[in-house]
């Protein structure tokens, strides 16, 4: 995961916005359901960096996870996606999660500890 300067991100969220990147998750259903409502999700990592995903409400979150992990170059198994502190399951969709436009998803890295 990209390490960012803490000073840079500690000031405000507007600065963090500059780090936003846009991405659209393509779905198989594009052709069959062109009118399906799509929303933008903000995936925010531990450093405050946000990645935007445009997804359909019927899209399984699995796709978002895989896409995010691919962009960051990490194993999806080592990422934990949270909505309001609750884990999101792979097979859930935005509709099931009652996600709305511009909603934020937190992504955390696997945590270990022993000593």
């Amino acid at each position, binding site marked *: 995961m990209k390490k960012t300067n803490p000073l840079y991100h500690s000031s405000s969220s507007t600065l963090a916005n500059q780090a936003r990147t846009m991405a659209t998750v393509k779905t198989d259903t594009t052709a069959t359901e062109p009118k399906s409502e799509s929303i933008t999700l903000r995936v925010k990592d531990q450093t*405050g960096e946000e990645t935007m995903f445009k997804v359909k409400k019927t899209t399984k979150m699995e796709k978002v996870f895989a896409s995010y992990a691919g962009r960051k170059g990490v194993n999806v198994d080592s990422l934990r996606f949270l909505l*309001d502190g609750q884990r*999101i399951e*792979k097979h859930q969709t935005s509709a099931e999660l009652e996600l709305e436009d511009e909603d934020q998803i937190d992504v*955390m890295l*696997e*945590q270990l*500890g*022993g*000593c």
Partner: protein
Amino acid sequence: MSHSTSFFTRPRFMLRRKWGHHDEREARYGTKPSAESNSSETPNSFFRGSWRTSTSWAPFSQVYNGASTSSMVPGNEACQYDQQDTGHFPSSDPSIPEATTPHWPPSHPHQRQTACSPIDSNFWHFVDRVIFTREEVRGRAPLIKLVDGIRSERYLINCYGQTQIDKLLAPIDTKADYIHLPRGLSGRPLVKWVSMSEFRGMCASLTPIPSPSAVSMGFRKGVLAESSSPVAGYAFSPKRHRGEGYSHDQSAAPRALVEGGDPSTCFRESHSTPLPPPSIAAGINMDKQKLLEHLQQISDEYLADDGATTAALEAEARVEGVLGGFGGARDPLRHALAAVEETLRKHSAARREAGGKDWRDRAAEIEARMVKDVKEEMVRARMSSLAPAEVKEVHHVLRQGKATDVVARGFNVDMRRQDLQTCNPGTWLNDEVINFFMSLLKERDDSFCAAAAARGVERRKNWFFNSFFMSKLLDDNNGYKYANVRRWSRKAGDLFSYDKVFFPVNIRNTHWCLAVIYMQEKKIQYFDSLVGTGREYLVALRQYIADEHQDKKKSALDISDWELVSSDRQVVPQQGNGADCGCFASAFAYLLSEDLPINYISQADMPAFRQRLVYSIVKKALTWNGEDA
């Protein structure tokens, strides 16, 4: 040494895990266990002595009459002299042959190891397990009742589980030679679960075929003061515990010298050889001069601290009176001695009424101790190792199959084998395990609350945040940031209505700790199994509840009276390696969420606890010894 007992104890190596059946022994030794099988030739008697020091105990009356007073007065010559003089506990019943009374004190070191006081050899044995003879089983219902009297049913059910309680209270087949008590949850027999100190009290208060209600009531009203705890000479009579054909003269047996001693000494687990009590009855076998000294000593003890001259003189007079009539038969002497004891007791009571402790205070104190013991046993049960079949299952889950297989599913998490494998010994736990366990605790807590509500008791809930909360709240990069977790309590609702809120804390991806907010007590405590104090986390959490209050309740919270309790390495159990902090943090939450103390656990419990973690995650239930939480 000879015994006239009617039970056997199983060799240690056969007992290590579980209660077997005595048929195992039959197969092994080709002997059918019977009441007469305890001759010294059987392999049994070898093991019989192995309870020795760790479980040495004295009956209640002995403790009260003897250990307490003798510990109060150093150099209790009369008493010691008596031991050497007679060579064994004086038996008040001449009909009992000398041979049945083990020699005391043991003269040879080896004998010392294997010898037990007469009462032990004829009654209960504490080895790893106890098998009860039919006489002994009679004490069972009162045992339960007694514990029941100590604490509410909730404790019992929490400790044993409902099914065990039902089993225990079920009618007993007294025709059976041996009865297997259901295992206590700690894998030890029930009576072991009943703590030593309690058990002493039980032994003293249980007369053969007691009325259960009388016993339990007896404790409630202060069994210590009111039970028919006999004079010591009587208490040491082995016959008392044979169950059959025993009767004793209540009038001749004065009440126990309960008030005489300091309760703390009553509950000390004495590892040294127990002293016979300096009770008056012990003087039966003494000659006149010794008896005089003995009696004077006793009266001194009773009257020492206030120097009440009148009472002292009165007592002296009584002593003299008794001595005047000395030389008659033993029985009248016993009556006379009892009368003296009674007088002294009265004086003692009167003195205490004037300005000392009420027996109720003492009963409360003892009850508190018993509760403490009960809690320790509860902790032991919860930290006990799994049964072999369960261990096998754990090994199977950890070793068989692909690392990415999902082995448990729940709480929106797919637990993979590779995550569970972090529970392997010496491995660092990962967040999946910790958080899954927290969810299990939450689930268990809900069931506790439901059970409490069913009984009409109010129990405040606990809330368990996951380990990401702290990482978000106190970001390594950004510092404290409430906005990150503002919405995280949405599912919990009003955090301030909870009893405790648990926060597993991951420190820089290397260390696990636990922070707990005691909402009702206004206290935030941090538990670190490796030295740290957690000051920064405590401060952050205090700020969090202030912000949370402001955000959710729209009013400022006065945080000035919130107490922050840093982790103290003297108080919090410390890990002995560089891998088990996750286990400790989980175990702290596991126990604290049930209001159990954490100070009984140690590094030695952790290997078993790792297996328990795996097992409970795979089963999605927190169990111990097959008993549902």
